[in-house]
């Protein structure tokens, strides 16, 4: 039987529909990683499982028991689910040891000595035994988050939920928290993790959920999602695609303005100057080729649209150029023109690849990759 089962989960905040019907189940020992853009509802989904947000519709079953049913003892169910927050949320008026021991002693009636013994063991495994009597305020973010994980583990949870556990951390401290989570993954603890750490997700997840538009947009093994994403938004997210768009409507267009815009686009996403120069070159050569090839000398009605999709994750760009006018394939072999006339296209052929050309209802469509 699934340890968590979710049917038709919906949640809105006012007019904003955050979750639009989610069906999902988690098996014991699975490690689910939820990814997605900001505002896609992945944190809300996690908070619904913990019932920190009350769903508008749908049922959630934890270990066979419906937690969305009325009159259910939610406090009891929460004891078997741990949650780790982005902002750690340690009890600031208590020492580390008290933070760890209060829940098992008060809720599970565990004797104080036993609880403290267990706490010391956990603290040793995360390397913080020396901080047992420190107050949270004196600890670094990474240390606090490791203690927050220990605090959840003190209750022997069946499921551990992580809500962006490293997002509030200094980059230098992310590693220590991920290390602890990797260790838990090896112990086959059931975990649901919302994170932006893609490499970590790839490494520990048994299943990846990609959230978009308030639903589970695509799911699969890390290989399926990261190496062969199927759907458009997944690809855009995984490859971290960036878009450049430019339109030309006259023969004497402002070349310098276009080049400058490409330059700014490149700087924004940290492209190398050599690669930027090639982007500019490809655009310039293609545009002049098309202006000369598609239009007569006195043609006023010019329309060229350039779209560049840059995939940050792999460092490659895809060009798509739409040109309204006479059919003209700039890369077709031609004997009439001299070598010198066609020098632009020669350069283009040298730097880019995967050329495509088609002509449909008066529009030339040219595609290539750089």
């Amino acid at each position, binding site marked *: 039987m699934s340890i968590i089962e979710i049917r038709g989960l919906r949640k809105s905040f006012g007019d904003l529909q955050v979750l639009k019907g989610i069906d999902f189940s988690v098996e014991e020992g699975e490690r689910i990683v939820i990814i997605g853009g900001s505002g896609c509802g992945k944190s809300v989904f996690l908070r619904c499982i913990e019932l920190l947000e009350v769903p508008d519709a749908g049922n959630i079953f934890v270990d066979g028991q419906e937690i969305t049913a009325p009159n259910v003892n939610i406090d009891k169910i929460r004891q078997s689910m741990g*949650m780790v927050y982005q902002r750690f949320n*340690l009890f600031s008026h208590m020492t580390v040891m008290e933070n760890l021991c209060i*829940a098992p002693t*008060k809720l599970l009636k565990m004797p104080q000595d036993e609880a*403290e013994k267990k706490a010391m063991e956990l603290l040793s495994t995360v390397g913080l035994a020396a901080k047992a009597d420190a107050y949270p305020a004196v600890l670094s973010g990474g240390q606090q988050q490791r203690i927050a994980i220990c605090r959840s583990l003190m209750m022997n949870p069946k499921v551990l939920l992580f809500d962006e556990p490293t997002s509030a951390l200094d980059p230098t401290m992310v590693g220590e928290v991920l290390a602890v989570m990797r260790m838990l993954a090896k112990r086959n603890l059931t975990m649901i993790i919302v994170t932006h750490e893609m490499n970590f997700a790839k490494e520990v997840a048994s299943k990846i959920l990609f959230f978009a538009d308030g639903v589970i947009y695509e799911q699969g093994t890390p290989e399926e999602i990261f190496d062969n994403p199927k759907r458009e938004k997944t690809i855009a997210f995984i490859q971290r695609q960036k878009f450049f768009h430019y339109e030309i409507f006259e023969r004497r267009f402002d070349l310098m303005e276009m080049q400058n815009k490409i330059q700014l686009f490149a700087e924004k996403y940290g492209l190398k100057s050599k690669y930027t120069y090639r982007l500019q070159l490809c655009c310039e050569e293609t545009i002049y080729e098309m202006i000369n090839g598609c239009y007569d000398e006195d043609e006023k009605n010019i329309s060229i649209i350039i779209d560049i999709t840059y995939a940050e994750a792999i460092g490659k760009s895809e060009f798509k150029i739409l040109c309204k006018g006479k059919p003209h394939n700039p890369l077709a072999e031609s004997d009439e023109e001299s070598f010198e006339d066609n020098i632009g296209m020669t350069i283009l052929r040298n730097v880019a690849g995967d050329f495509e050309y088609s002509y449909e209802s008066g529009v030339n469509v040219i595609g290539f990759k750089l």
Partner: protein
Amino acid sequence: MKKFLTLIILTAILFSGCGIESRQITSVEDLKHARIGCWPECGYEFAARKVLPDAQYVYLDFVSDLVQNLKQNKIDAFVIAESYVENLKLEGVDVDYLPENLGDVPTSYIFAKNEKGQQLCAQMNEFLKQCEADGTLTALDQKWIHSDETQRTFTKSKLSGENGTLKVGTDAASSPFVYLRGTEPVGFEVELFDKFCATYGYDYEIKVELFETMLVDMASGKLDAALDAIEIMPEREQSMLFANPTYIQKTVAVINSDAITGKSFLDETKDRIAATIIIEDRWKMFFSGIFSTLTITFSSMIFGTLLGFAVYMLYREKIKPVNKIINTVIQTLQGLPTMVLLLFFYYIVFGSVDVPAIFVAVVVFSILLSVSVFVMLKSGAESISKGQTEAALSLGFSERRAFVKFILPQVIRIFFPSYRLALNTLLLETAIVGYIAVQDLTRIADLIRARTYDAFLPIIIISIIYLLLSWLLKKFADNVAIHFDPKTRRREDILKGVKL
């Protein structure tokens, strides 16, 4: 220490103010355009205005205030009954008065304007007629008005009270007609009333309160009668039921005396200290005042804190209509002056219920403190991250336990300084309860002032007492605060089972 030094300097300045030269007044003519002190809207002012219509009248509530203002030349004279001045002179107050009678003013008792009051009034009139006939009035006149304190013996008669107990009010500031000897009201009217009760089979209880409070208590039926040598005036007769006159007062203008007392400053100061503290065991009055003030403060502290906490816990249940009511009530309470609230509760809420005034004071101050406590808890809890509550919930604590175990201890630590301030404010604000007939420290100072005609010493004594009380309260709160600071706990208390 600095505070006390400032006080001493202040005292010295006030004392030195007594010696300013005044202009000479020898006849009523000299008072034509003078500043004349009097009780607000009293019969003596009424009489004086007929003779001196162009004078400027200054209202002061107590004889002691009139004397004080005269001595500091803030007024040129004050008008009052001759019998009062004679009494002042007997008590060694250094004043004189012009021999002219500005007008006769009859004084008497007033009774409640209801059936019982009418009956009592009729009995009193009958009794007065009888007293006049058998010379009782003349004897009392001789004893209280023309003798000094040593001959004015009075002990309350053993009264059967077969026809019930009368509730009687007085402001006890009309020596020699009604005044306090120690804490016991005595005087011409008291003894006469005592004899009246003995004749007609009543017992009586005297409640000492402010004049205005007494009049309202009469109107609301909390009192059966008021004895205060009240001047019978036509406009008063419309709203009050007067008995026949017990005494016909002569209105006189009191001026500064030229006489030199011949006492040294040191002797005079000694006398004043004796009058304020030692004579008639007045120090006991100060202690009873401290007791009242502390009773109100500490009872309100306990009930107010509990009430504020209870209301906040109710507020956390998030029941919409209930919270709306709570918010409205809190806003209303915050928008009213304490004084107004006190009067509202005394005259309206508890108007028709016979409860001790000190109880009303405790109720009002408890409510006021509970408002502060509520606001502190609310804003304190908001300032603690919501995340800690969620963390506690996800560990499996219930909403209420999460609040009590994790949020409340932090809130208390944050709000303690403002709580301490609220307690201090509470202690100081209790000074207004005199208006509803509670004899707290401030009111005691008023009463003693009314007897000794010396404003400085009682005020300075209570100032010092208030400073001391507020200092003690601060120390007490500081001691409590330590228990709420986790950083002050010992290491052994935190780690019980583990040996590092």
